Structures are given as structure tokens and as C-alpha cells.
């Protein structure tokens, strides 16, 4: 474990050092900011109450949108499960909506859902939906059919099958897709804040851009990444709990 940390630190040091060196050149500094300046900016942020409100706002949006998107995906899967024909019917439509550039539809979102919290939540939920849907869907395709048959014969109802086979069997998939998608949800939140808002981390990045301060933009993106790293660690903990039964 010590070795792991050493290598990690070495990589980190190399990355930050390289960045600092690179940005002695004005051209790169204008683009990427400077680590030293980014750090001092972040230091200023963390003691500033408004930074925490911004973070809180982004988190609240993300969490709500995330929950909504995950719930929607799970509901759809629950419908598709007993009726595979529905799945086949919807498949191309889902693929299409998935590939629609949601950012291009920002005006539609503004018109339909307004500019409030609500609109951002829908934006995030839509982004989330697909990751979870496809993740769990492929997990379902991997389930050992004998297990399902066994349970059905034993008289498990649809709900019980879901609880006892589908959920545990797809938990791994769900969590790995949730891990991927936490980041995506945050990105969606940041982008929707970036399009319109006066609060949140995305707003901070937009401000940094408006003020032409690359340090602020980079710092904003890093803080988003830190938030998502934290969320990821939480999910990993849950994952461990879920996988207790596995071979050690």
C-alpha cells in the first residue's frame, strides 16, 4: 500500500511539476493557468462561504437530477423486463435520444422547464438516464438463466425475482455505471449552470471564463472533479458491501 501511495504521489508531483514548468511560457499560462495560482485561488475559495453555497447548490441539483434519472431508468427497465418486446420496440428510440446532443437542445429545455432549479434537474436526469439504463441492461443480459428459472419455479413473484436475482446480479453493473455517471451528472449540472445560472460551480467556471482568468476555470473544474471523486469513494464503499458474497 505504501508503494501505491508513493507511485501516486510521484505521478501527481510529475504532473503538477510539468504543468508548472510548462506554464512559465505565457501561451500556456493563458490557457491552463498556473498550479501555484490555482492553489492560492482554491485556498481563497475554501474559506469563502459563497464557495460552499455554490458547491451545495451544485450538489443539490446533481443529487436530485441523479435520483430522478436513476429512478426513471430503473422504472423503464422494470417495464422492459417482463415485456421484452417493449424493449425491442424502444431500443432504437432510446439510442436516438441518447445520441441527441442535449446541449443543442438547451433552448428547448429553457422553454419547457424554465431557468430554475427544475430545468437543471431535468437536464441532469436526462443525461443520467442513459448511462444507468444501458449499464443495467447489459448486466441483465449476463444473468445466468438457470438461476432465474429456479426461482420462478419455486414460486417467486415478479417483484421477488427482481429483488433476489436481478438486483443483486446487476448491482455490480449498476454501481459501476453509477460511478461513471456520477461524474456525468456533475458535468451535466455544471454545463446547465454554465448555460444559465447565478449559483453553483458551473457558474463559477463561467465567471472565470468571463473574467478571462484561466486559473479560475481550472480551479472550478478541479473542484468539480474533487466533488465527483468524493462521490465515487462513497459508491465504492457501497459496492464493497454489495460484493461481500464474492470470492475474496
Amino acid at each position: 500500500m505504501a508503494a501505491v501511495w508513493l507511485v501516486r504521489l510521484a505521478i501527481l508531483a510529475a504532473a503538477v511539476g510539468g504543468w508548472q514548468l510548462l506554464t512559465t511560457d505565457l501561451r500556456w499560462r493563458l490557457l491552463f493557468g498556473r498550479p501555484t495560482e490555482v492553489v492560492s485561488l482554491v485556498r481563497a475559495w475554501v474559506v469563502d462561504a459563497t464557495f460552499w453555497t455554490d458547491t451545495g447548490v451544485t450538489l443539490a441539483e446533481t443529487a436530485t437530477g441523479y435520483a430522478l434519472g436513476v429512478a426513471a431508468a430503473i422504472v423503464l427497465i422494470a417495464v422492459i423486463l417482463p415485456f421484452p418486446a417493449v424493449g425491442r420496440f424502444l431500443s432504437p428510440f432510446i439510442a436516438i435520444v441518447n445520441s441527441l446532443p442535449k446541449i443543442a437542445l438547451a433552448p428547448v429545455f429553457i422553454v419547457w422547464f424554465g431557468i430554475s432549479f427544475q430545468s437543471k434537474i431535468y437536464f441532469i436526469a436526462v443525461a443520467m438516464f442513459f448511462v444507468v439504463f444501458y449499464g443495467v441492461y447489459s448486466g441483465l443480459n449476463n444473468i445466468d438463466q438457470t438461476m432465474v428459472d429456479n426461482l420462478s419455479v419455486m414460486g417467486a413473484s415478479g417483484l421477488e425475482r427482481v429483488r433476489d436475482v436481478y438486483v443483486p446480479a446487476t448491482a455490480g453493473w449498476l454501481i459501476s455505471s453509477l460511478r461513471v455517471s456520477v461524474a456525468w451528472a456533475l458535468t451535466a449540472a455544471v454545463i446547465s449552470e454554465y448555460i444559465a445560472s447565478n449559483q453553483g460551480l458551473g457558474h463559477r467556471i463561467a465567471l472565470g471564463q468571463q473574467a478571462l482568468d484561466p486559473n479560475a476555470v481550472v480551479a472550478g473544474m478541479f473542484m468539480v472533479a474533487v466533488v465527483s471523486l468524493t462521490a465515487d469513494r462513497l459508491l465504492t464503499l457501497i459496492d464493497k458491501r454489495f460484493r461481500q458474497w464474492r470470492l475474496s
Partner: protein
Amino acid sequence: MATLVKLRMPLLQVAAVLALLGLWQWGTASGVLDTFVVGTPGETLGQLKNWIVDGTLLQSSLSTMQVLLLGWGIGTLLGVIIGAAIGLNEFLRLVTDPFITFFNGMPRLILYPFLAVWLGFGLQAKVLLVVLVIVVVVITIVASGFRDVDPELINNSKLMGARRLDIARNVYAPALATWLIGSARVTLGYAFQASITAEFIGSSKGLGYLVVFGESRFNMNEIWAALAAVIAIAWALDGLIRLWERRATRWSGAGAR
């Protein structure tokens, strides 16, 4: 009769699309829907026709597809290689995990201006954006999938004298196919978002450009017409993925029952 059954689903889907279009047309004609906000199917079709006739559509689609496919391909390939390395080597996984998660957490979609200044406002920067956006997703999925492979299969192969490459080919690759298909669908969406976003900014061609152009003129029909091309490409690519899925999962007998 058999062909009729086979055709039932596509027919149903086409019917659904037509119904939706009909509803849309009726809604805008009767004033229930605001044409300014949703456009009209008629005018969208008209716009499409114009673009087809003057070649804009083909040229833009090709230009977007070039970015999309290059970025998607490179991103997936890189993701599989890195993901496999991480999935197979516990040390590597532990070392890289926080970095990958961190990078995954960065809102990479807004990186394009930086990439463009760095690499020039050409194909490279756009492709790189797509790669950056999807590579982490593929890495994560592949790495966690690799760890999920039944250890008994691996042990059995090893006992029989399989070398790493053999195991990669005969155990990991087929197992990988399932997750790759799952992730291909997700990443396809991302790749589209990224290539269109790249074209929003600093571009004078591609479907993304058509979309912003329509947007800046509040012309929803132009936006839909451009998106129609996106939809067509997405649909075709999804079809390919499904074909691949059917081939790759033939062994599971999923369709047998």
C-alpha cells in the same frame, strides 16, 4: 408469414414515428404547440430537402461523422487497452484509480477551446475532445468488467497452459464483448455530444455548426433538420451495434427461448 412476423417490429416502430410526426404537425397547425419553440415537421422537411439538394447535409454529416467515428474508435481502443491493463494489474489499478476518477469527474466537454488553441481549430482538436470524453468511461467499464470474469474459467485456462495472451483472447475478449456493447451505446451518445459541442465552437462545418447557426437565428426547423441527420446516423450506428451484439452473444443462446 414468417417475414411478416419479422417485419412486425420495424413496422410498429415506423408507425410510432409517423404517429409522432402527425401529432406534431397537428399540434403546430392547431396552435397547441408553439411553432417557434418546436418548429413544424413540414418546414423541417423543407429545410432538409434544401440541404440535401445543395449538398450541405451530406457535407456536414460526413464532417461530423469523421470526428465522431475517429474519436469514438480511438477512444474505445485506448479505453480497452488501458482498462484491460488496469483490470489485470492490481497495482496499476490502485495507483491509477484516483487519477482516473478525478479525470472522469472533470467536466471535459468544456475543454474544447483549450484543445483548439493547443492543436489548432481542425480535426485533431475535435477528435481529441471526443477521445477525452469517452476514454475514461470505457476504461472504467472495461476495468470493472475484467475483474468480474469468473475466476474458475481463468484458472482452468491457466492450468491448461494458456499464456496471458491466450487468456486475453479466449476468456477476456469474449466476456469483454458484452460490456463493450453496453458501453458502446453509452459512449456513442457521449461521442455525439462531444463532436457536436466541438462543432458549436469555432467551426464552420458539421452538423453542430448547423445547429448553432439555426439556434442563433431562432430557427427551430434548421435545428431539427440538423438533428434529423444526427438521428439517422445514431440509428444506423445503433443498428450496427445490435448486429455486433447478436454475433457476440450467439454463444449465450439468449435468443433460443
